[in-house]
């Protein structure tokens, strides 16, 4: 089911200061997709989610879920959360400690006064789906973090909601479990064909899970796109920087070469993709991700985008080396395969493919 949000505003007052948690947000969340709200903490993503579910009342605007308007300031409509028919997984899971697994999951159905054997059937099915069959009588507090997370998911799914919402559901799990649960969640949600709205500040989670990502900052949605678009071809410097590690080089476009353009920056002339067709003479930003920077001992072949620099630092992090290379006054972050035969302070050449770096419009704000 599609969610349409129009002109949503929400202000907080803290110590006499007004904080705009949501600043005129317009957004359409397409049906049956996994849609992620990504942004740094305090960007308003959780507030937006809580407005959709009805736990918070916006100051202005309109929210429609499917054909039903659930909130409209102008028309004075506010549908309380229990009447919106949604499912939600909370950051803390919110598993009720005084109930066992069965009761936690059955709760939304008990609420709807469903016959007992039907409840039993549905709960059994959803517990099987989240691979918790046989846990019915386990006290909810006697579960591991991953199991609690799945109980919360089962509870959100059991009433077959139109939309399911996730508020940073993996942030309380340890790193290894988080990775496994992320994969599980992806396969659960793909199987279900359900509209899912997912809030996170973790870029890897967002990239791995989503069909669409909306990046937020300071109460506004900055950019929406699928993971590859956001990663390889973001419109904004902030997004490019937030979604992954990036070397951002400021310069001026000198000429265009078909899909590419040449930009003059501190370390020299660089050729990169120019999808946004920034005309020559204009300021621009070049983004190149560390994993695309290759090193070479010599200036072989005389290809494009080759520079000589000094390896300032080199840190071994297991799966790779992370290094910083100095070219003039500029420091570039690079990742090097862990078998490479280099040491810090080496002088070496780096190169990167013009197809693997891209130009962004220069922005006043960082």
């Amino acid at each position, binding site marked *: 089911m599609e969610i349409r949000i129009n002109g949503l505003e929400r202000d907080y007052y803290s110590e006499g200061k007004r904080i705009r948690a949501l600043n005129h947000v317009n957004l359409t969340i397409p049906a049956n997709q996994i849609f992620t709200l990504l942004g740094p903490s305090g960007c308003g993503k959780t507030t937006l989610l809580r407005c959709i579910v*009805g736990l918070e009342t916006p100051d202005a605007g309109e929210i429609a879920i499917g054909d039903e308007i659930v909130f409209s300031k102008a028309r004075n409509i506010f549908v309380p959360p*229990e009447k919106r028919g949604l*499912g939600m997984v909370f950051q803390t899971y919110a598993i009720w400690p*005084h109930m066992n697994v*069965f009761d936690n999951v059955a709760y*939304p159905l008990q609420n709807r006064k469903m016959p007992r054997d039907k409840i039993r059937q549905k709960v059994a099915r959803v517990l099987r789906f989240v691979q918790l069959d046989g846990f019915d*009588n386990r006290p909810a507090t006697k579960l591991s973090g991953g199991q609690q997370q799945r109980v919360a998911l089962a509870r*959100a799914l059991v*009433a077959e909601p139109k939309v399911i919402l996730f508020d940073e559901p993996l942030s309380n799990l340890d790193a290894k479990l988080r990775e496994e649960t992320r994969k599980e969640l992806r396969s659960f949600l793909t199987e279900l064909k359900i509209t899912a709205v997912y809030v996170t500040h973790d870029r890897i989670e967002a990239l791995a899970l989503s069909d669409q990502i909306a990046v937020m900052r300071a109460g506004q949605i900055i950019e929406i796109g699928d993971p590859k678009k956001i990663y390889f071809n973001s419109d904004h410097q902030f997004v490019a920087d937030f979604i992954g590690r990036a070397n951002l080089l400021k310069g001026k476009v000198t000429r265009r070469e078909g899909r590419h353009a040449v930009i003059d920056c501190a370390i020299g002339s660089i050729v990169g993709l120019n999808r946004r067709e920034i005309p020559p003479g204009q300021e621009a930003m070049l983004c190149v991700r560390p994993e695309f920077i290759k090193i070479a001992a010599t200036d072989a072949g005389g290809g494009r985008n080759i520079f000589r620099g000094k390896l300032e630092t080199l840190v071994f992090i297991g799966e790779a080396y992370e290094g910083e290379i100095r070219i003039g006054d500029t420091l570039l972050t690079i990742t090097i395969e862990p078998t490479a035969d280099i040491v810090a302070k080496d002088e070496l050449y780096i190169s990167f493919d013009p197809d693997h770096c891209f130009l962004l419009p220069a922005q006043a704000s960082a």
Partner: protein
Amino acid sequence: MMKKPTLTTILIVIVGFLTVCPVVMLVVGSFSQGLGTFDGFTTEKYVAAYTDPEFAEIIANTLIFTVGAAVLATVLALFLAYMNNRTNIPFKFLFRIISIIPMMIPHILFSVSWVLLLNPSNGILNRMFMDLFGLRSAPFNIYSLPGMILVEALLDLPIAYLIIAPAMSAFDVSLEESSKVCGASNLRTLMRVTLPVLRPAILASAILVVVRSLASFAVPSVIGMPGRIYVLATHIYQIISTGFAADYGKAAAVGMSALAASITLIYIYRFLTAESGKFVTISSRGFKPAVIDLKGSKYPLFTVVGLICFVLIVLPVIVLFYTSMTPYVMVPSTRALSMMSWKNWVEVLQDPISRLSLKNSLILGLGGATLGIMLSIFVAYVIVKMRTRAAGILESLSFLSFSFPGIVIGVGFMWFFVRTPLYATLWALLIGYVATYLPYGIRPLSSAFVQIHSHLEESSRVCGASPFYTLRRIVIPLLIPGIISGWILMATMFVRELTLSVVLSRPGTEVLAVQILRFAEDGLWGKLSALGIMMIIISSSLVIAASLIGKKLTKIEVVDNA
């Protein structure tokens, strides 16, 4: 969504009435001619109250009594808390017992048991010492300021301990460790590091004990009055209960200074406890505090702790039970044992006023605690879950009565009730009790509410449950432990209530503690002890019954859902 602001308003009106009304009436009353006549503004009562030649002595007594009790109770509490948290003293469970005895022995009975032990004419201990050492006169006289201070300090020791012990255990041990690394001895570390860091908790404990002893009525009436040592509380009592014409206006005028002192001290106390959060650092490293090996002094020190426990808990009950069985106060001997009988018990149970007071106290304990806890649930909910400005006002209002000396507030209520049909009914006592002891109900419930993460309620709403259904299925079941402990606390306090009742209780509305005070005034120690033991039995069975019901309720909830 629209209901919540009105709930807050209703609660502010109720709690505001309960706490502000007696104060307003006290102020109005202190400027009035006599009880029930509000017309005619006069300052005559103030003049009469504060030019009384005895007044200076009363103030001096009050100062010595309250400060003395505060110092003694705090020193004892520091000693016990240090022993428990920092040393390898054996039998640490005793310390937990110390912290819960205020629920077990009513103050008036504790005071009476000390009178029975140490009064100069026939105190059991005094007699024993005289026989043992062949003394001519009694070595101890409990009817004195030191006697009052001793008993009051022992009564307030649990409060002081409850403030100091958590601060002691939350103390970051690395502060002490670094002192020792610098070459300081255990004692020097204690004096130079531990105690200075704990200063806010120590001050807070001392101030709270001053406030409690200023409000205390049991010790000043049972121990002070026979020795003609009057403090503010007993002075007020004397004004309204003795002589031909009770002067409620003068009592109100005297009460104003006690109230002002109390409110000021509580204000300082709250400031200090807010500060202490910054001062005492809680170590997040999860280290167990280093335990100091007491070595040879382990058992001597334990004897001291054991003696305090014995004196606090066992001795009063034994003395009372023994006295209830003997015809008059006598030193235990074979002759005394042969004369023991249930006569006092039978007489008390046949005495119509004692029976009425038993009934009234039971009604007030059960009914009052139930009403009080229901009000507390709503107040705690608003205070914890809705952090609006109105909720802040409600919080301040509901903790205001914490600083009210019972007898003063009783006088204030008297001015109010005398103009209503509630005068001389149990309802008057019930309203007064709930108003005065509301913080004791709110405290456990608000900590229970704090533990209910807002997500637990919100997820219920998202699951399709209405606010009411959420309250029934999620909030109330999770609150049951808090409700039970709040109810127990209130019920036991109501059953033994003395200071407020002494003013508000009229013929027909006698309660247990007041009846015990009457027996004490008449020197009927045997009957007093019998009634006192009954009171202890009622309190203890309330505690036991409530915990059993609590256990059962949580079980039913589980069965119902399975």
